[in-house]
């Protein structure tokens, strides 16, 4: 089974998000970088499937050269090939351009080492949404470009022993929604689908030496144009302290009553 996993380099956000002086991007001078928890789970899911069915995991990202750090982290977890769709630093690709760039890779056949008419990968996995821009659409746009079925927000994925179909499910408003899809297909996953492993030492060493394929990309401008970013105002005042320890319980009961939670 040949699996493509799409990931994105994003800043590690700790205390608060701060912006650059021009207000057009997140200030990352003091932050590390990572991929989102959804994508860590996508990589783990892919590695587990290849352990079961054979084949290989290819990981791809669209980003600056520095995103090789995230590709190597994925290689350390068990991906065997990595592709960097390289953006000039500072250039952001929107969701339409991102799907188009990923499409160019998703058509590639690992076995034939060329572009295959029916696409080379049995399964393309993405995170449900990127943790920074949160566009909620790249996986679906990619699936339409490929002409393949897609399921999104998936928290349980089960591939038939034949390797020909998958059953994917998620919870929605307290009910379980289950989708059946033929392979090849596209699936976007969410954190919770599995518990990702830690990289092994041999994995890290292999990742350090691995060659990464680099392809320059110039994204087209999007129909939705960002004009500025801002951090929302802190909405609340200082909390009213109801008390300390069990002595606060009567005040807590009064507060619950005033809020209408108890009658």
């Amino acid at each position, binding site marked *: 089974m040949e699996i493509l996993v799409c990931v994105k380099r994003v800043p590690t*956000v*700790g205390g608060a*998000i701060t912006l650059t002086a021009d207000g057009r991007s*997140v200030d990352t001078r003091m932050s590390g970088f990572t991929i989102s928890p*959804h994508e860590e789970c996508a990589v783990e899911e892919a590695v587990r499937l290849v352990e079961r069915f054979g084949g290989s995991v290819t990981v791809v990202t669209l980003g600056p050269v520095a995103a090789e750090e995230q590709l190597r982290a994925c290689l350390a977890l068990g991906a065997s090939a990595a592709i960097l769709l390289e953006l000039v630093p500072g250039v952001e690709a*929107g969701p339409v351009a991102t799907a188009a760039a990923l499409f160019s890779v998703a058509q590639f056949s690992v076995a034939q080492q060329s572009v295959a008419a029916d696409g080379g990968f049995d399964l393309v996995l993405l995170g449900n*949404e990127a*943790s920074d821009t*949160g*566009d*909620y*659409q790249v996986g*679906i746009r990619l699936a*339409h*470009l490929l002409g393949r079925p*897609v*399921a*999104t927000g998936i928290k349980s994925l089960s591939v038939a022993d034949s390797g020909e179909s998958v059953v994917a499910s998620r*919870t*929605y*408003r307290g*009910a*379980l*929604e*289950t*989708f*059946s*899809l033929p392979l090849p297909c596209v699936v976007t996953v969410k*954190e*919770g689908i599995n*518990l990702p492993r830690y990289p092994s030492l041999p994995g890290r060493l292999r990742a350090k030496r691995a060659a990464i394929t680099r392809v320059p990309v110039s994204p087209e401008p*999007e*129909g*939705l*144009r*960002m*004009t500025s*970013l*801002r*951090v*929302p105002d802190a909405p*609340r005042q*200082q*909390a*009213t*302290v*109801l*008390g300390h*320890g*069990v002595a*606060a*319980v009567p005040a*807590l*009961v009064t*507060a*619950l009553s005033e*809020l*209408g*939670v*108890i009658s």
Partner: protein
Amino acid sequence: MTVFCLVETDDGAIIDASLRALTLARGLAADGLAAANGSNGGPVLAAVVFGDPPTADLAAYGIPDVYAVSGIDGYAPQAWARALGGLLSPEPAPEMAGHAVVVAAGTDRGNEVLAHLGAITRLPMAANCTAAVDNGGALEITRQRWAGLLLEEAVFEEALFEAPVALLTVATDVVSPVPADELTAVAVHAVEPVLAEGDLAVRAVETSAGTGGASLATARVVIGGGRGVGSADGFAPLEELAALLGGVVGVSRVVTSEGWRPHTQQVGQTGTKITPDLYLACGISGAIQHIAGCSGAKNIIAINTDPDAPMMTRADYAVVGNLHEVIPALVAALRERAAP
């Protein structure tokens, strides 16, 4: 301009997230009407629903037209998108004038259907908007990045927007659902969609998730537990309190990473965004990814041993103390209060 709003229903009533979307859509339609000096000759605001139209709710929200799509059994995202797309062509709505905006709730389904519509039509889509203004032809929106920790101001490029359609979903935790000032008579238009091959290939089969129907996303009371709970067993008093208050338990990311509770209960950027009347956060320090998931709560009470924890300063009310002492005492007090 016509504003279409995809409406999701549950047991015949419009879900909270869709009521928020309808509120934003109604404001946008009023903008458009004002820009066109009060008449553009066509419907300006219409709901789209799959299945039976919830006319009472639509009347209360001032939605004069509803397109009721039949013939699609259950939830099939691409088929829903195709049906929505069919409304945008002149055939079913010949009186439609000018451009259109399609609005949906920023739910798993709403974002998914509009992304399909964007892919089918090659139109841009803005996910999880908190505001939208029709500024005389240019559609300006504010949308959430980082699950709402950052806001993006953006504009649908005029060259694109003049001609066809803008797609946007509405954040589930910011715009408040507000009924219209007065009831509106609702005209129902039956629609039989024209689907393309493969549109029904992916469809949901719904079964109970075994949660007894209680859903974190829609609960009115959420009792939150974090690292301070300390163990899987430590959640028993929180469960007891949740049952007393008619709520459900939600947890922080560390709790699911430790395997104390299932991931379905995780509140936050990569879990569920909640919008309860009360979030009672126990032993949760308040990482910003968690705050992103609970900032839609109307009221927050935090219980923590550390008075300077971000969750404590972010809350409306705070109790400085050990949750393992405070929660059992609160449960006892509530039981005593309820006793005759």
